[in-house]
């Protein structure tokens, strides 16, 4: 995607392709809400108000349409290329984002709790999120949109191993 090499290693595993469907659905819901807001703007804000209104009356819809096109037809696939995860012998490792990317690495020995959450849309697609918490308010890893069975197995495995290897350094 870019010429410059990533600062750190890429996690090994990608998400299931159903995640793309989920992201497209999320984008579509966002597009509908934006369309309602823009529609309300066009209907109820009179065009002869002066000031920047005439300019906004065509600029806002154009921006909204561009954003909708990217959100529905580009971003889900880009995200699917960026979102990656990996559970190794001693750590959980993820990459998230699309334009801005974030890599998060948390060692199993410092895990405090592991949660599995299934949002409403996620349930429709049979997906779940694994959230791994540490003692730090910023050191939380979320593995988004795994197949539900996989998520549950990962969470159980991590919780069991964290119990065995936990150290008291934190």
């Amino acid at each position, binding site marked *: 995607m870019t010429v410059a090499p990533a600062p750190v290693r890429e996690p090994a595993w990608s998400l299931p392709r159903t995640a793309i469907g989920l992201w497209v659905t999320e984008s579509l819901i966002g597009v509908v809400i934006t369309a309602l807001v823009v529609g309300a703007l066009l209907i109820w804000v009179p065009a002869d108000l002066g000031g920047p209104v005439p300019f906004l009356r065509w600029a806002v819809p154009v921006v909204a349409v561009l954003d909708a096109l990217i959100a529905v037809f580009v971003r889900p696939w880009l995200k699917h290329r960026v979102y990656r995860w990996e559970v*190794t012998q001693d750590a959980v490792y993820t990459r998230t984002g699309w334009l801005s990317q974030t890599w998060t690495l948390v060692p199993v020995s410092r895990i405090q709790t592991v949660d599995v959450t299934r949002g409403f849309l996620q349930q429709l697609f049979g997906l779940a999120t694994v959230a791994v918490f540490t*003692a*730090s308010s*910023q*050191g939380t890893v979320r593995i988004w949109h795994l197949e539900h069975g996989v998520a549950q197995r990962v969470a159980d495995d991590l919780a069991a191993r964290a119990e065995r290897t936990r150290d008291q350094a934190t």
Partner: protein
Amino acid sequence: MSAPGEPTGPGEVPVPGQTFWPPQPRRTSPRIVLVDTATFRQARQLVPIAVPALAGIGLGGGRWTVVALVVAITLVSLATAALAWWRFSYLDGPAAVVVTRGLVSRSTRTVPNDRIRGIEIEAPPMHRLLGLVRVRIDAAAGGSSSAGRGAGKDEELLIDGVPRAEGERLRTAVLTKRSRVPVPTADDVDGAPARPDPEPEEEFARFDNRWLLYAPLVGGYLAVPVAAVGALSRIVDEVPDRLLPDVDGPALDPSVVAVLAVVVALVVLAAGAVIGAAVVNWRFRLVRRGGSLIAVRGLLTRRHTELEIDRIRGVAVADGAGMRLVGAARLNGLVTGLGDAQRRGQLLPLGPRAQAEALSRRLVDDPGPLTPHPASARRRRIARAMAAGLLVTVAGAVLTVTSGWWPLLVTGVVLTVLGVPLGLGRYASLGHATGRRSFAVRVGWLVRERAVLERRAVVGWEVKQSWAQRRAGLASVVACVGAGRGGYIAMDMAADDVAAFAVAASEPWAEQLLPVPREPDRAMR
């Protein structure tokens, strides 16, 4: 000395080897009823009920009504304070501290000794008059709720109004039991006012009153006079006009008035900051006693905070722009599981930079001088510092063209030009260093902070790279720690250095970040 109901009076020497079993709950001193009556501590909670009730009954405005009201409120306050005292008891048992309270519904809170992270003894002015103290016992949040949410205020036991010696006894007893020393019974039941702690003290820092002069250059203390002036102006607003003195003096030149106002404001600000700093930090002392650091400070309210050295994961040296001018700094300890860490973690509230640095080296290994970040980071800092000014400039240009109003354009240009030194300053602050057992990161300009952390403190790494950073070959790294703010950032370091820095600054698990292609360990799925 001892409160009624206390099982062991002074002078009652316990038989060695024989423990008091089961231990009896203790009461706070009845003198606390006086303090609480005067401060309306319990009665205050009734205000939301009382006000509408009184408004409903309706009162005449006579003098006797006011007197009756004052008497009634005081009586209510006395009654509630006495009830609260009567229903409150605490017990520092061999395994846990138990606090029982509640007027109607009883609540019992039990905190196991091994969850106790520290004890703070404070003596507000009224307490000091009556020889009482307030003991706060800080506890780690329980298992799952602590995850990523930190210890909140509710994870704290408050035992308000015990005699000073009893507070001291409680502190020693709880801390001794927690460290699993087998039953030092003589210490446990000794209510003598003499310090029962035989361990030698080592002084780490002592406040020099000349340091108060730094206060006007520290943002936090400047807020004190501003708040005071705000409160005062509100009071003046309330006073009826006819009571205000007539201040129409001889007419003065407006420019003279403006200069005078600025001078007066500056003097008030500076004096207020110094007074505020003095009230909080008066006779500050930091000593080490055994495995703990003890900080004592305060003019009106004396605070006595205890931090376990074993839980100190690092320190943060804060020296904002104003403090750098005079070579001052503040030192905070980064302690795991410490509630209200900003206030309690203070190891040197205000002092010369050299002293803060020396103290920091005493607590955490010095990782050496900071490595500056690459030149592209400087371009990025300047660009970001100018961005806001540029936006104002563009808006100003549009306004100048459309309506001829030029001041915004000038402001925008000035802000943009000022962005250059600001960006340079922010770049100069950036840096990171790794040592044998610790590492350091520094960021900020107006509020600059250098965090020095032990390698074992890191519980995770977060590497962030925006689109612009990727093009500039930069990345930001956040070391996640379970202490202080929770994360410390090394902003805009060279992308190629990120993995090596993470490995050098934490334990071997961070090698996972190294960009060498390696076979993932699938066996663990």
